[in-house]
């Protein structure tokens, strides 16, 4: 790799690029949360009706709504909402009146733990597998690899989770069936994390293997790879230097996309394994028509998505010098 001094990085636009990307994220985040706010408000029925039942009188409903802070005009509700977000206040649950932010804070680590570990698993296994299947193209290793990764993306995450549960928890009794474990106890956490993490991790691996493979095959066709060989560079440098570095560019941006898909699938896995997390919280909120909680959870998801996109852009800028000059 090039011996580029850190000061050179700054000189060549990495910092400016980073700042630009961060600044762009802010209006996007705002747009998303606004959309969430109004979408959630359009849910049928209202929480008051959900709590009191369909036969409650109009006065009772209105009284409860006033108590819940739902009687003020919608624009004011929006401003309250925004102000709350800025100060970290996610409102109160419409069902039990408890503040939502602490609840989110309690379950967020579980979701982060799950998503992060699966993403890392996927990258650690997916990229090498992608490289090896590309290099052993059309041989047995490749056929097996390609079939498995195709199956991996065709398998519903919740079904894989159930299979894992069946084999490892029920039949072999190696891992707990439900729960997230005590987050403060690393061993217990890991024990509970293993199966759900493996489930999502395998799916991530399937996606990344496919992408890496096709990217490497594409780059191998490029002229500059031929130039590297014409210079007499040894094969290891040609593949892991010249080819891989370029091949990883599209893979990195796709990792961001897959990470977002992973967040979606994590909802299903959390349900399957009864694991505490944002997903479980969200589905529960829908069932109870607690749209304040729903809204807050979606806002947190939005934040995660924006951060992931930002990280992806930044890594891309780091690897590809051409992008920084945009």
């Amino acid at each position: 790799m090039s011996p580029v001094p850190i000061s050179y990085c700054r000189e060549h636009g990495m910092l400016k690029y980073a700042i630009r990307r961060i600044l762009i994220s802010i209006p996007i985040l705002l747009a998303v949360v606004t959309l969430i706010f109004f979408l959630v408000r359009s849910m049928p029925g209202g929480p008051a009706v959900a709590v009191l039942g369909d036969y409650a009188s109009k006065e009772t409903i209105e009284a409860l709504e006033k108590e819940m802070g739902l009687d003020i005009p919608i624009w004011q509700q929006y401003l309250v909402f925004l102000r709350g977000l800025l100060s970290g206040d996610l409102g109160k649950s419409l069902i039990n009146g408890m503040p939502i932010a602490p609840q989110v804070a309690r379950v967020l680590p579980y979701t982060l733990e799950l998503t992060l570990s699966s993403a890392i698993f996927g990258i650690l296994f997916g990229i090498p597998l992608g490289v090896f299947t590309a290099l052993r193209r059309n041989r047995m290793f490749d056929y097996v690899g390609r079939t498995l990764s195709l199956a991996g993306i065709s398998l519903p995450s919740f079904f894989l989770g159930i299979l894992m549960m069946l084999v490892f928890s029920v039949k072999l009794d190696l891992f707990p069936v439900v729960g997230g474990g005590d987050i403060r106890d690393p061993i217990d956490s890991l024990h509970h994390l293993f199966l759900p993490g493996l489930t999502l991790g395998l799916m991530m691996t399937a996606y990344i293997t496919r992408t890496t493979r096709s990217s490497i095959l594409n780059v191998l066709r490029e002229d500059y790879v031929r130039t590297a060989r014409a210079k007499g560079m040894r094969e290891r440098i040609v593949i892991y230097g010249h080819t891989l570095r370029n091949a990883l560019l599209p893979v990195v941006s796709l990792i961001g996309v897959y990470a977002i898909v992973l967040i979606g699938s994590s909802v299903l896995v959390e349900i399957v394994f009864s694991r505490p997390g944002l997903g479980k919280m969200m589905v529960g909120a829908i069932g109870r028509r607690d749209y304040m909680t729903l809204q807050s959870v979606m806002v947190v998801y939005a934040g995660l998505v924006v951060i992931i996109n930002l990280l992806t852009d930044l890594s891309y800028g780091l690897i590809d010098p051409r992008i920084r000059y945009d």
Partner: protein
Amino acid sequence: MNAHSKLWRTFKNNKTAVVGAVMALIVLLTAVCAFVIAPYDPLEQDVFHRLTPPERSHLLGTDEYGRDVLSRVIWGTQISLTVGFFSVLLGMVLGTTMGVAAGYSGGLTDSIIMRVVDVLLSFPTLITGILIAAILGSGLVKLIITIGIVFAPRFARMAYGPTLAVKEMEYVSSAKVIGAGSLRIITRHILPNIFGEIMVAGTLWMGTAIMAEASLSFLGLGVSPPTPTWGNMIKSGIDVLASAPWLSLFPGASILITVLAFNMIGDGLRDIADPKLRA
């Protein structure tokens, strides 16, 4: 050898695509002939034979109400394919309209529509789907609409680029000069150009749509029991996983096979579209 037969030959030579197509065909036939193939009425309960494991009279076992799992899986095929097909169709129509409208109009309409599309697309598909399903409610038709709405932005983005490109081409400006109306320009010039790509995408997304249906039904937001869908069957099966795993296994395997079939076709189509990518 003209272009069509060459395409057909490439398709035939692509083993993955062919296997996928055969599998998809089998699934399709199952759905169409459900009435004939299914040994039992999927809704018929039999309290004396609850949760029986697979045996001769019930090849895939029975569920907690004594209903034949095999029949339910077969009828579930109908629902999955129906939802898959119509939701993709809806998404295609909605999305293409949005994308072409944005690309063709330009200016503020363009910016607004495409910004909304970008925002919608940045979110995990499943979570968007969950939110919309929560708003619209459950049921077959509503589910189709939900998934259609979730897919629309993707088609919009796909239709947008080529629309912009074609718009700039000379034959469009010359068409405008002779007074051709916008609609005519769109249908005669723009749509044929994007048609192929959208069709390929549509096929690929059948698989995703079926997964989405299963996921939403699994969460209780899609089609509810007693109507058999693979998703809600897996959901009911979880409670008795230890004692009666067949309740979840067979519908799950069906999802795998069906989605795999469409993905295989999709891979094959992609190879045809861009031979350089051919494995």
